[in-house]
């Protein structure tokens, strides 16, 4: 009976946001109970993920196999079942994603252990683990305890747990796993991209976001160019959508999408609350605005007070130049 096991998942060469959320929650629970936090990540190429996960977990179990491409639930279940039997963690925790919905019930049956899904809170009480779930169409919050079991399975609601800083240096263990049989029902074919033209700004690592400061639709060209050299995607604030310069799926903010890119470049965006609500989770925020008093500077990590129409071409040139050097 040792530790808490968090199952990390990934898609399209990135760890899923929900994994950071449950990892943060797992860290908190482990610290409270003075337990070890383990993270497991399975896939065809997991080195980068493992390094990332080590920021939170005491130990990262990295399972590598070509069979695991696309993170299919069936093979994963075999691995996780194996690990639970071996490690006997007090709790196995994962995000309530479609992946977890696919795997967790079947895993629970296979091992004969209790499962609580879509939990909005998880906490210790007198040494027991309890969970809160929202029932009756979200009208009632119910607290549950588990049937006697040495290990329990929990999935946590997406977006419910805030991501805390990691900053640890956990150790990484590579684990070999032999799949005994080949009787898989599902096969990974490949990722389907969103419909042509459609861009999912919530998945982008770099967002170049424009506001009304762009002045004219034709100036979008230089912004597209900047996004291209940065390997990012163009998003925008609401007025740009109102003018019909960009489609509404590119809108960031209260009435648009909530984004968490690694780099968010805000160009000519004043930073009204409605917009900031949608982007403040970005790792690094850079703002360019003529108005030094624009509220966006209060959330930005870096700021440039100038006309974006002057700055952007200069940036494009400089970045292209730097990239030219490295390539």
């Amino acid at each position, binding site marked *: 009976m040792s530790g808490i096991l968090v199952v990390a998942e990934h898609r399209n060469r990135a760890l899923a946001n929900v994994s950071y959320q449950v990892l943060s929650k797992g860290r908190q629970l482990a610290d409270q109970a003075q337990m070890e936090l383990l993270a497991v990540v399975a896939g065809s190429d997991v080195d980068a993920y493992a390094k990332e996960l080590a920021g939170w977990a005491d130990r990262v179990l990295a399972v590598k196999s070509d069979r695991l491409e696309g993170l299919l639930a069936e093979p994963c279940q075999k691995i996780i079942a194996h690990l639970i039997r071996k490690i006997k963690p007090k709790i196995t925790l994962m995000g309530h994603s479609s992946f977890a919905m696919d795997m967790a019930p079947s895993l629970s049956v296979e091992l004969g252990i209790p499962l609580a899904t879509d939990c909005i809170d998880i906490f210790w009480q007198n040494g027991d683990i309890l969970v809160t779930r929202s029932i009756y169409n979200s009208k009632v919050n119910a607290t549950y305890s588990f049937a006697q079991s040495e290990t329990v399975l929990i999935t946590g609601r997406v977006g419910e747990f*805030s991501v805390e800083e990691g900053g640890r240096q956990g150790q990484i263990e590579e684990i070999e796993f032999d799949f005994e049989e080949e009787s898989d029902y599902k096969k990974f074919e490949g990722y389907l991209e969103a419909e042509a033209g459609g861009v999912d700004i919530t998945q982008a690592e770099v967002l170049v976001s424009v506001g009304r400061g762009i002045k004219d639709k034709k100036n979008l060209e230089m912004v597209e160019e900047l996004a291209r050299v940065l390997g990012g995607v163009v998003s925008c604030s*609401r007025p740009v959508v*109102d*003018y019909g310069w960009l489609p509404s799926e590119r809108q960031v903010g209260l*009435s648009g999408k909530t984004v968490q890119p690694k780099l968010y470049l805000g160009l000519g965006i004043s930073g009204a609350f*409605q917009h900031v609500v949608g982007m403040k989770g970005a790792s690094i925020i850079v703002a360019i605005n003529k108005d030094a008093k624009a509220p966006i500077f209060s959330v930005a990590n870096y700021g440039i007070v100038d006309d974006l129409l002057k700055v952007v071409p200069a940036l494009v040139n400089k970045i292209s130049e730097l990239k030219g050097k490295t390539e």
Partner: protein
Amino acid sequence: MTLTDYKYGDVIHRCFRCGYCKFPINWMDVNNCPAYARFRMETYSCGGRLWLTRAWLEGEIEWSDHLADILYSCTACKNCEVKCPLSFNIDILNMMIAAKGEMVERGEVPSPVKEFLENIQRQGNPYGTSRAKRGEWMEGTGIEAYQGQEFLYYVGCVGSYDTRGQETARILGKVLQKAGVSFGVLGNDENCDGNEVKNLGEETLFEMLAEENVAQFQGLGVQKIVTLSPHSYNTMKNDYPGFNGEFEVSHYTQLLQGLIRDGGLDVSGGYNATVTYHDPCFLGRWNEEYNAPRAVLKSTPGVQLVEMARNKDGALCCGGGGGNFYIDLLGGSADSPARRRVREACETGANVLAVACPNCLTMLEDAVKAEGLEDKLAVKDIAEIVGEACGIK
């Protein structure tokens, strides 16, 4: 669903769709229903929504995302109730809210509505920001926690979290301090007032919020409440008594009117501007308070008050009611009510558009930007105008 289950089954067929519900103060156009003004399809008019609701109840049409969007595009601005010449007009909004309630019951609401309600349930505010951050707006203001002062100053969700709302909340706090009003706030212990929740049809959640708030207020011995938002004012004044919550509720403009009149607040610093005033629905049509905000403006030296063509019970809603400041079913077009409204404000020649509601403030300020009118028109809450007039920076 059959008509017999629906509370207004014996009245909803009475709408003839004559279209009076679309008029402003006179017959100058048919664009005073915010949703109809935005889309101009008959489905989005008040009559259209009533007929569609009835068709849905009677099984003539199926529930759809589009139907939900049409119903939730109603901002509960009450223009229809005020303009409808027929005797059942008192129930028009109730009919809409009951239909939304049916959608909530079935879990079939537009996803932003769902988010809105879930966020309120979890964090007590529509943005889903932590309850622990609700009091951040007051940092450094010296505003005290409520502990038996004369007034509870209830700030509301927009005032507590929205950056612009926070500015007004702070300034109003300072104005009240300057006037020597004895008041306190709830800070992180404040919860959503529930006005929008009710209008979105989530009756159960509304009851829960109302009961909790009433219990909290009573526990603290609150007798008088002054609110920043007309939305809070409305529900506390009109709905809370139904939960045994009898408080003396005023909107801050009413309090300021009295303070200025009685010399309790010195506004001799003045505010030099040509100002037009936008009536918020929940102060105006819902509670027929058209005078207090105007009286405050008129008694501020330097303010030249000019009226928009639509005013008082003919005012055009900013489009933010019924949760639309968040769910935003009316945005994205030059026909959006907020953008129509700021253009109208500009036509008066005013350089300041005064509001008395944080929702209107954010909606209209956004619209001023979208219309590119920043150089001509500033959107200011009356609290900010008074703040400047009494020397608060």
